[in-house]
């Protein structure tokens, strides 16, 4: 004991690792001490993870439940709640704006996620080669991800400006009439998707790259011996080997696309919240925001939030099903 105290006072490293159990049993401790000890062993892990669960309860669980409660009421911003039952949900089913927003969320999601993931796969494949300055490229493709949404969107909004933008200027060189990137439905959705794609391609590419590097080299050697070209190897070896990773990125991107908010909001400028003059790029999140903070119907906004949550749960469920099938097919342990 004396040594250990002096050691601690000296500020030297803490005492050696726990003594073996037998040593403890030799001296029978008093009853309350052993109780305390047992409590210590059992409770300490919970104490260590408590901060997470407390934070989760305060910032995750409570808002979730409260939003659910709000969605069953008519709540005006700053006013009292009034019971409405499922009226907010049935109202959504009848609302053209909800279906329009849902459709927009889906189309923008598809035209941003699909090219994004395909490009990421290609980029990852290229980066997987042994090339000079590989480290630099790997960092460089992550740069867009590190850019803030607001900054990136502002720059893209300038590029896509109908009258003064660089993209229309460039198209003009080939005699193409200026495209109304903001007012026409599809050009606007494509412009927004471009921003999303630009930001996330590098991020996904790095995830793919990590997965690709875990593919055993023997497979490639065997394939090469069989006379498979690089492309053939990519299709027949790389893609099947990283299938779970691809599934993961699809799910993550789908979640991101469902929650799309900042890009259309800032891209639309003054008309951003409504998603353009005819709501042509209003997503579910924007509709929720407009309902909640512009018109002040918090109940309806909460209903939209819950519908979004249910949609995402469906996506999660589908992913679980597919990955289980996948595991069965590849024979991997589940």
């Amino acid at each position, binding site marked *: 004991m004396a040594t250990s105290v002096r050691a601690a006072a000296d500020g030297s490293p803490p005492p050696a690792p726990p003594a073996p159990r037998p040593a403890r049993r030799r001296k029978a*401790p008093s009853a309350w001490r052993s109780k305390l000890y047992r409590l210590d062993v059992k409770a300490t892990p919970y104490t260590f993870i408590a901060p997470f669960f407390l934070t989760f309860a305060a910032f995750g669980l409570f808002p979730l439940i409260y939003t659910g409660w709000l969605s069953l009421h008519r709540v005006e911003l700053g006013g009292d709640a009034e019971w409405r039952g499922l009226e907010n949900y049935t109202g959504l089913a009848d609302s053209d704006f909800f279906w329009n927003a849902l459709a927009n969320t889906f189309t923008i999601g598809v035209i941003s996620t699909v090219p994004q993931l395909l490009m990421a796969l290609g980029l990852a494949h290229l980066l997987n080669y042994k090339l000079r300055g590989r480290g630099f490229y790997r960092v460089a493709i992550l740069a867009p991800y590190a850019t803030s949404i607001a900054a990136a969107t502002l720059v893209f909004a300038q590029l896509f400006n109908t009258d003064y933008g660089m993209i229309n200027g460039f198209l003009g060189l080939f005699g193409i009439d200026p495209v109304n990137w903001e007012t026409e439905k599809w050009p606007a959705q494509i412009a927004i998707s471009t921003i999303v794609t630009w930001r996330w391609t590098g991020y996904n590419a790095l995830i793919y790259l990590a997965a690709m590097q875990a593919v055993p080299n023997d497979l490639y050697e065997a394939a090469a011996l069989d006379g498979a070209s690089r492309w053939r190897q990519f299709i027949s070896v790389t893609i099947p080997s990283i299938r779970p990773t691809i599934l993961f990125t699809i799910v993550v991107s789908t979640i991101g696309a469902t929650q799309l908010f900042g890009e259309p909001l800032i891209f639309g400028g003054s008309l951003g919240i409504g998603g353009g003059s*005819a709501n042509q790029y209003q997503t579910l999140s924007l509709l929720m925001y407009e309902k909640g903070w512009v018109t002040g119907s918090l109940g309806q906004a909460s209903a939209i939030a819950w519908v979004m949550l249910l949609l995402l749960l469906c996506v999660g469920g589908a992913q679980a099903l597919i990955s289980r099938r996948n595991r069965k097919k590849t024979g991997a342990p589940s």
Partner: protein
Amino acid sequence: MRTSSRTRGRSRRTATAAVAGLATCAVLITGCSSDSEGGAGSDGKIELRVGTFGSFGYDNKTGAKLYAEYEKLNPNIKIVENNVSDGQKYWDTLKLRLSQGSGLSDIQAIEVGYIAEATSPAMAGKFVDLSTTDDVSTANFLDWKIKQATTPDNKVVGLGTDIGPMAICYRKDLFEKAGLPTDREEVGKLWEGDWEKFIEQGKEYQANAPKGTAFHDSASGLFNAVISSSPEQYSNSRGQLDWENSSGVKQAWDLAAEAAEADLTAKLRQFDEKGSWNAAFKNSKFATVVCPSWMTNIIKDQAGPENQGKWDIAAPPVAANWGGSFLSVPKAGKNTKEAAKLAAWLTAPEQQAKVFAKAGLMPSTTKAMESDEVKTAKIDYFGDTPVGEIYSAAAQKIEPAPIGRYDGQVKTFLTDNGILDIEQRGTDPDEAWKNVKNLIEDKIDQ
């Protein structure tokens, strides 16, 4: 002995960890609510924050330097203005902050389109009643102006800053190139008495127009002008929303749609955040803009020195009031007493006259309106145009229309979603009308 010492040591560590963990949580949970802002600054001065949108002409840079003047008169005060360009977004944010009772400036400006919402029972209680403030003399203000900000139980939630007597600002050089007269008297006669004539002149302009220019800046601007000149707007005399049956809305909608479909406009959204509208002033994209007195300041700022002397002001087809604002003092502000004093000072006749001379905001107090300072005022940017005379005359003809709680929101839907849709995307006006109707039903009736 060793064992016991370790046990004690570990339990102490456990306790420390638990306390640390809990403390972290506590900090996280309370973190958001403990932000301290405003109040007395480090130098002991009281900081007053003023939230505005668009141009109020108070600031020390391009305005009448009223903040600097007030700070000189009251050395213990420091004023910070927080300005936003988009009035609609400003109001949305303000509403949210009022409902939460936080993040508010000491003085908040309110546009006339939203003043009926501010005086509604749900919101009126969140503002200081300015009729009981010492330095305020409600009798100074135009009768209809102060009434707009007065609740049924005679509380005054806002003091009028300005009103928006309207004229038409036009580009002399572009008119000349298109073969139209350039003298302001003659120009006014071209469309005197009827908005339909204004559209006719537009068609004539467009036929001979210099390439790349349009007659008018935006169909929404035209819509606002026409409805502002109508005695019947979005709400009936009892203040209830009745936009669908309003003759004013119908007329304004039809004319704006006609202008949009005949390509008389530059297809812009006024005050858009990306600045396309502002840039169009500089690049001479249009020849006319509906011009409430506050617009003169915007033209001066946006068209810039390279276009100085090219603008002139003519009488509108029909007299109208478009815009004008109020200064309110939210109860949740930090220094409501000092804020009310400042609001009263800023809206007093002397200051209003100064603001008019500098920024063209037409006073809302009769004394300032009739002062020589206002009547003979000219704005350098507009050369020898008798700006004060034109707007004072226009102000006399204003007939206030009833306003309701949802007017501002309905106006935004009609212009941003209806007219702009026709103008920019070529939507059929009937279709656009249906869309707006759906929107308003969806967003306003809860």
